[in-house]
């Protein structure tokens, strides 16, 4: 159909872009993960698996990784608990207000991540909005310390930030359910409750899986929320990578951790895509 030259012209720019900003950096990262740093802070280009051994030898790396996964898991659960009912209500019961409510759910996505994270800082701090209020109504005598600089703050903020990402695929999958299936279910004697569990929920599972994957993967790799609100107990794996590439000047170890994360995330995406396929019927 199209000439060779034409095809080359339109495919080359994106190809170059991907090569320059994705493939080459990943290749470099891959190489770095086998190199090391000499005591006088020079990168030594000798190949070894030492960085990967270090990863499994030093407790703090694995502990932080598990903590990150646990934080991401909680964020995923809360995002699903908030996002699913919201999506269900909008898709099935919002009527004429559907479009308006949809926009209201989407608007926070246009607000800068940093602004939203800082907002939580103002709310949760020792002399923040929440503690002031609690003391004012005499529910507490002293400011609650666990509110800020804790895993709790990180989970809360990430849930706030990533719930729309969970909501969207669930909403899309609910919107795709033919309404005559719901009618057929009622027609066959199923109550609204039975109809939800036997028809609507099973058919929305691909959306739930996609939404859960978004929430989990995005919060697993997050480093701003723990940096701003996590404190020492709320540090996540990305914060360690950041410090290894920065102050600690150990690029090779940072690269090794990054690659492990990358493999983990790709495995998760692969798994969720397969499950989604299994649960889609069209």
């Amino acid at each position: 159909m199209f000439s060779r030259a034409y095809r080359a012209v339109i495919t080359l720019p994106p190809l170059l872009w991907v090569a320059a900003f994705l493939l080459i950096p990943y290749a470099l990262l891959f190489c770095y993960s086998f190199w090391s740093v000499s005591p006088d802070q020079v990168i030594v280009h000798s190949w070894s698996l030492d960085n990967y051994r270090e990863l499994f030898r030093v407790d703090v790396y694995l502990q932080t990784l598990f903590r990150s996964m646990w934080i991401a898991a909680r964020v995923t659960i809360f995002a699903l608990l908030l996002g699913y009912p919201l999506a269900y209500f909008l898709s099935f019961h919002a009527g004429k207000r559907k479009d308006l409510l949809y926009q209201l759910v989407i608007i926070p996505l246009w607000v800068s991540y940093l602004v939203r994270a800082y907002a939580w800082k103002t709310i949760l701090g020792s002399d923040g909005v929440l503690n002031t209020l609690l003391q004012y109504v005499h529910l507490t005598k002293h400011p609650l310390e666990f509110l800020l600089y804790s895993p709790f703050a990180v989970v809360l903020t990430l849930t706030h930030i990533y719930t729309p990402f969970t909501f969207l695929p669930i909403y899309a999958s609910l919107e795709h359910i033919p309404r005559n299936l719901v009618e057929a279910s009622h027609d066959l004697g199923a109550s609204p409750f039975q109809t939800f569990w036997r028809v609507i929920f099973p058919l929305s599972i691909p959306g739930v899986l996609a939404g859960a994957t978004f929430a989990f993967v995005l919060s697993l790799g997050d480093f701003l929320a723990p940096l701003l609100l996590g404190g020492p107990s709320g540090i996540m794996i990305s914060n360690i990578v950041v410090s290894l590439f920065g102050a600690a000047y150990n690029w090779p170890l940072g690269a090794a951790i990054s690659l492990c994360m990358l493999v983990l995330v790709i495995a998760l995406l692969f798994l969720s895509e397969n499950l989604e396929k299994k649960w889609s019927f069209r």
Partner: protein
Amino acid sequence: MATSTESAITNAARPGTEPLLTIRNVAKSFGRNAVLRDISLQVAEGEFLTILGESGSGKTTLLRIIAGFESADSGEIWMGGERLDPLPPYRRRVNTVFQHYALFPHLTVEENVGYGLRVAKRPKEEIASRVEQALAMVKMTDYARSKPARISGGQQQRIALARALVNRPRLLLLDEPLSALDANLRRQMQVELKSLQREVGISFVFVTHDQEEAMVMSDRIALLRTGELEQVASPREIYSRPATAYTAQFIGHTNLLHAEVKDGVARCHSLSWRTGFRDGSALFSLRPENIRLASATAAHDVVRFRAKVRHQAFHGATELLQIECADGLALSIRTASRENRQGELELEFSAADAVPVRESPERN
């Protein structure tokens, strides 16, 4: 137009028997658009009633009101002594076969069929045996474990039917269930559906826009036009005794003759025939097949005339001729096929076959 009391009598299911379903003065509007106006209709136990109408006539809305997916603005629906219209669809002993089948894509064929029994929490053994029976009834036993996406349209249609009938409803509603099938399969399914209905003895309310389909299957046809019932009668009755010009034209072909009646004789152009109709202008329906080539012996009350053939359309066993009389009156006639019918023909029809019909007034 008939008044509502009059139509309530004429639309009665069977004189003397208690009807299964009674629709009383049902009306429905969507916004300013009146979709149904004052519909009264009864369905007898074991009857096959077809609601026939063009798209936009309100036939699907009426069906959805019976099923409970829409609520009527006014009027009542009763089934066997129980008022139906305040109940949600899942509390009505009515099942529906949907136009696009609406099979659950995540369930197998047998799970689809067993759905109604499972939500009713019937014992497992009973579900298994009734599902098996239902699948056998529609000859789909071999596909029990297939997913709906893996079977053909005609097969999906059978499953939709089995899924509804397995619940032993008192009334089965069918919303143009054959419209997605190709012509041959469609004719075959019409016959199967009719014999299945006789076998199970459940009342069927069948919605379609296809008058041939309605004629083949129904005990009675309720013809709906822009939200009002035009005529409710058996296929033979509605064909041979159409009440209105619209009915005569919608069901089969017809010639509409605008005549003047005076002293028991109707005149239209050069044609005249005896009629019992009152004096004044009147409209008569004369079916094309009731006009025939004149026979040698002139019978009583037969109208004879001559006309030229203008156009000949071959339909296989029969052909449709467009003819024109000397005074310009154009008619269609249907006769047995014969090659090269040309020139002038000597024709006749019986006065009794010119059926007086009411004008159908324009509505919105």
